[in-house]
């Protein structure tokens, strides 16, 4: 069990470094548990404020409850929310039938690139965690993307003593990972401790629940009776199944996620 206070303090430190040292900053907000925790951490870091816009990359295939929930929370908290989809690709009928990885590339990676260009972001705050999968386990806290949004994971600069990468050429941007050091179970324990409101899709109904949220066609439910935070935490303490087992795009090729992320995927 990691010390939640320590996890929180480190995340707050990272968010404050990003806010001070990067120019235009935005935070990806996918409605899921990780980005919901990040929004909470931002309010901790900035004393009840969120001093940068949230970005939702809308593929149009999201589970419908996610969109309803998104709009409700954004209105309640008065969030500065940018919703962006890759309209050109959607107009030509892009969808999972074109191939899952093709679809992710167009509707997520490219859509994200469009947002970065449109708002000239220098920094994007992303809720990736090392324990999610292999390529994320290699991430730096401040991770550079070049002008084509690519990640050169074979040549990452040193990152030590919380001295993060804040110098980079114009046109590049930094992916900031404030919860890189958290585990899935830490996220849930923190949600429970803090009483953070969370979308209902994670809680079991009729013997099933979502463990990870994404697009409806590519996100499977798991068999589960866990209908409360306590039950989810107990379930995770006992499980040996990995978190993203229900995410179809990960299973396409052993290095699918690495390839997607190299090209700019979140």
């Amino acid at each position: 069990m990691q010390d939640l206070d320590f996890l929180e303090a480190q995340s707050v430190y990272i968010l404050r470094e990003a806010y001070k040292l990067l120019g235009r900053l935005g935070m990806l907000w996918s409605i899921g548990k990780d980005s919901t925790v990040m929004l909470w951490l931002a309010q901790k870091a900035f004393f009840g404020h969120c001093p940068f816009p949230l970005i939702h990359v809308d593929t149009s295939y999201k589970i419908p409850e996610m969109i309803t929930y998104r709009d409700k929370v954004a209105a309640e908290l008065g969030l500065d929310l940018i919703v962006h989809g890759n309209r050109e690709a959607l107009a030509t009928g892009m969808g999972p039938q074109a191939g899952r990885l093709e679809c992710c590339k167009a509707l997520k990676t490219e859509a994200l690139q469009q947002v970065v260009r449109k708002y000239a972001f220098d920094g994007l705050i992303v809720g990736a965690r090392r324990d999610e999968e292999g390529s994320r386990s290699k991430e730096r806290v401040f991770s550079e993307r070049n002008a084509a949004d690519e990640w050169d994971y074979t040549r990452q600069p040193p990152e030590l003593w919380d001295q993060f990468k804040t110098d980079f050429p114009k046109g590049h941007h930094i992916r900031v990972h404030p919860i890189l050091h958290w585990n899935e179970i830490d996220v849930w324990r923190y949600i429970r401790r803090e009483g953070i409101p969370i979308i209902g899709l994670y809680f079991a109904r009729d013997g099933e629940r979502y463990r990870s949220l994404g697009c409806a066609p590519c996100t499977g439910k798991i068999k589960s009776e866990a209908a409360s935070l306590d039950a989810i935490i107990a379930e995770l303490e006992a499980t040996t199944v990995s978190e993203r087992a229900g995410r179809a795009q990960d299973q396409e090729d052993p290095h699918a996620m690495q390839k997607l992320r190299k090209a700019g995927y979140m």
Partner: protein
Amino acid sequence: MGKGADPLKLVVAGHVDHGKSSVIGRLLHDTHSLPQGTVDRVKRIARETGKDFEFAYLLDALEEEQKQGVTIDITRLQFRTQKREYIIIDAPGHKEFLKNMVSGAADAEAAFLVIDAARGVEEQSKRHACMLSLLGIRQICLIVNKMDLIAYDEARFTAIKEGMNAFLASLGLMARDAIPFSALRGDNVLEPSPLMPWHKGHTLIQTLDDLEAARRPDQAALRFPVQDVYKFDERRIIAGRIESGTLRAGDEIVIHPGGKKTRVRSLAFWRTEDEKTEVRAGESVGIIVEDEFFNQRGEVISHAERPPLITRSFRASVFWLGKKPLRRGNRYKLKIATRAVEVVVEEIFGVIDSSTLALDNRAQELSLNDVAEVELGSQEALALDLFADCRALGRFVLVEGYDVAGGGVITADLSEEAAPDGFAHGELKARCEIFEEYHYNVKEKEIKKSRRAPEVYTLGDALPLSGKSYAYPDFFDIVVMRDRIAVSVREGKVTDIIPLEEYRYGGLPVLNGRGFAFLVRSGADWERCREEFTDARPKDEAALSARWLHFGAFRSIPFADGDWEI
């Protein structure tokens, strides 16, 4: 902080291919710490690429790593025993990826140094040990892996252990433990191996649980580097992380390097549930202070007792990871805690080859992967600590271009030897560099400066008005803008030292703190000049100097060969 203990951070280091990733993979496998299907998936990848299953693939997640059978970048993973939680950091052993090894090892509390039983101690075994020592890691255990390749031979094991211990001893280190091991066969992982009955020491898991966890420095001197100042609402909040010590609402504090004093009015929180009146090392906090000075990122808050060192010059052990060599005279951006400042490499005291510890006393540059003792200097006063006193304020990185190119730990404050001359009268103090000697070095084709032992002058003292590169009149004034002090010199003696605010232009030559003449002819001139300097930002300095200062009025730059005797 909360009840959960911080995980113990352990780095696994050693020469390329000696089996670091395999050792960790084996440990995860035998303790059933892997998610379901992971081993099957790795077996599938191995089959599809026509390779044998490798425990290392459990760590080396990148396609490039698996293809080449080499770890490129660090993996940090969490691991749990009955006793406690760990973060295990798998470092790459290839020389080319030393920068990644250092990134992983920098905040570790302990290290496993993996050595191949068949190949013995090799170049990176030593280099990694040297880095671990420089980074302040004192708990080191030797894992002599691949014992299966040498028929579990005790004599070979002992020879390797003793060889490595001798090297560690020359670094002032001692291994806590040494384990004969086989990642391939799983010997001495959880249970003592029947193939090595001669080994009476620990197994891997016992060695792990035997390590000592570092404690947070709550009891140490307060160090609170200012990260940012917020004014989102009516509150003005100074934000940052307590790096060491404890801070309470109501405490008297000093803000360095300026030295201003104030009191903590309250601690700031978002939610009332989180409110408290005491915060400790490791916490990210916000404070509201009684006096609203201009505060900025990089300042360091302490209590009045146990302040940090305030210095412009210090000695450090540095490691260099840059492609271009680090040379004497080079300038870098130094980042220490939340402060970023330009420093110049004043001196290189000897370069050490990190794999042999051979010392080259005459070397004047550090190449990739070298370590050395150097003197770094800054124009601005810095609040810092010796690494031995406070880790967070005693270590730094050096940035060249866009990337961190090196780092180091502070070993000595050199401010006394390096301090310039000064003027002092009661509380009033100013730095004085008007007696520095300049020359043009005809061999190196560069302008150089040299100094003598520093002196402090006060009222009545006679000044050495002529040197090799300067000749000052008997009557003049000196204004040291950065310290806001004015000095009157009459008949070659100091007759007055006053705050800048009280100074009035009186028609005599006015010099700055370096002996350059201000181009002023009247009181009105002087007022304008003073205002412009007071309002200047650092980047305006050259333009302002060009407008208001004349180097050659009392100074010259004579030719010289080699270093001058003063």
